[in-house]
């Protein structure tokens, strides 16, 4: 499965637009995660725990999107967009990770 954020695939001909494919996942709402994320890495000041969680959530969203594209018999997703939205929450942050694009068939 080829994923691209552009309108087309270079040197490949799109033969059919299969439809919209989306994937969503939520992370957070966990006070322990929030607490541990406060312990930043000394080098670079990055919160690696949060980074891992966000990467995991993005992978879930993208994988869910790919499964739907495969079901539509597509072999690529173009116009891919991934967004991260903070939905807040009483016990900490809740982040919604969404991925969507257009499933296509190319030759």
């Amino acid at each position, binding site marked *: 499965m080829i994923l691209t954020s*552009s*309108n*087309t695939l270079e040197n490949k*001909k*799109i033969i059919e*637009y*299969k*439809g*919209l*494919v*989306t994937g*969503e*996942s*939520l992370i957070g*709402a*966990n*006070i322990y995660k929030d607490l541990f994320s406060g312990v930043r890495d000394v080098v670079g000041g990055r919160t690696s725990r949060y980074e891992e969680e966000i990467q995991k959530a993005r992978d879930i969203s993208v994988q*869910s999107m790919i*499964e*739907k594209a495969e*079901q*539509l018999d597509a072999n690529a997703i*173009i*116009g*891919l*967009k991934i*967004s991260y*939205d*903070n*939905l*807040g*929450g*009483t*016990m900490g942050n*809740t982040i*919604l990770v*969404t991925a*969507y*694009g*257009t499933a296509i068939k190319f030759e």
Partner: protein
Amino acid sequence: MEFRNKKIDKIYTIKSIICIFAGTSAGLIVYGIFLFFHIDIFGWNLGLIFAPLAAGYAETILADKIIGENIGAISAFILFIYTVIYSFILKNPTLGWNIITAGSIIVILQAAFPTVVNFILLSVFGGILSNFNKTIKKYEHKIKTRIKNQNIVKWETKDIEIDADALPIYDELESNMLLNDFEFYFITSSDIIDKEYDLIKLFHSEVIVEKDNIIQQSEHEKTEYLQLIRIKDGKDESLLKLATKVKNAGGNGIIDLTINYSLIGFSGDNIQITTMGMGVLIK
């Protein structure tokens, strides 16, 4: 040198004991005065508050003059224990457990440990409010689910009892198939390659989804799951509304489609799902 330090420590301890003793005595005198003159409200002697305060004050002043530092108002604590034992156990062992007794104990504790007790009271008050709010929302959700499920399931069988707590199932693949079976082009890229099309105009559609505030840590996974389903449902609904608008305008597709999620409401209580794009007629 070591001997001298030990000697200094001993003198310090003796001075401290003297201060505590003096503070405790001052507290007892004050308590005695309050008892003797029956200075009380509804049978509750005010000496219970003022005696520990007087003890702590006397001890602090004395310690400051003799030692030159504060030793922590230990006599106030002693007075507190003494007055509680004397008043509630020895003097009045048959004291009934009622709202006045409970309130008195809280006031006494508050006088002795103001910061801790105020913190606990605030926590308890906040907890009760949160729990009350959560319970109401839970019942509201149960009622809504029952009403919703009854409409769908009743004709299939009347014997099945609907469990309002059961998690709903959302079939993503099926939902996506249905969305794309709509004879409509949802295209996220800004152009359609190798196809002719006419632009119609910009279309947008909004759906507002209620957001759960996750209070109990034990239920956060279930709440997150339900929240995600509501978001997915909302997104599907918004896309279908968008497609309907374009179809009504004579189009059969939308390009440069975007889906946005944002918090709205006074304290971000709702999630607005907005879908927008250029409506097109693909030839």
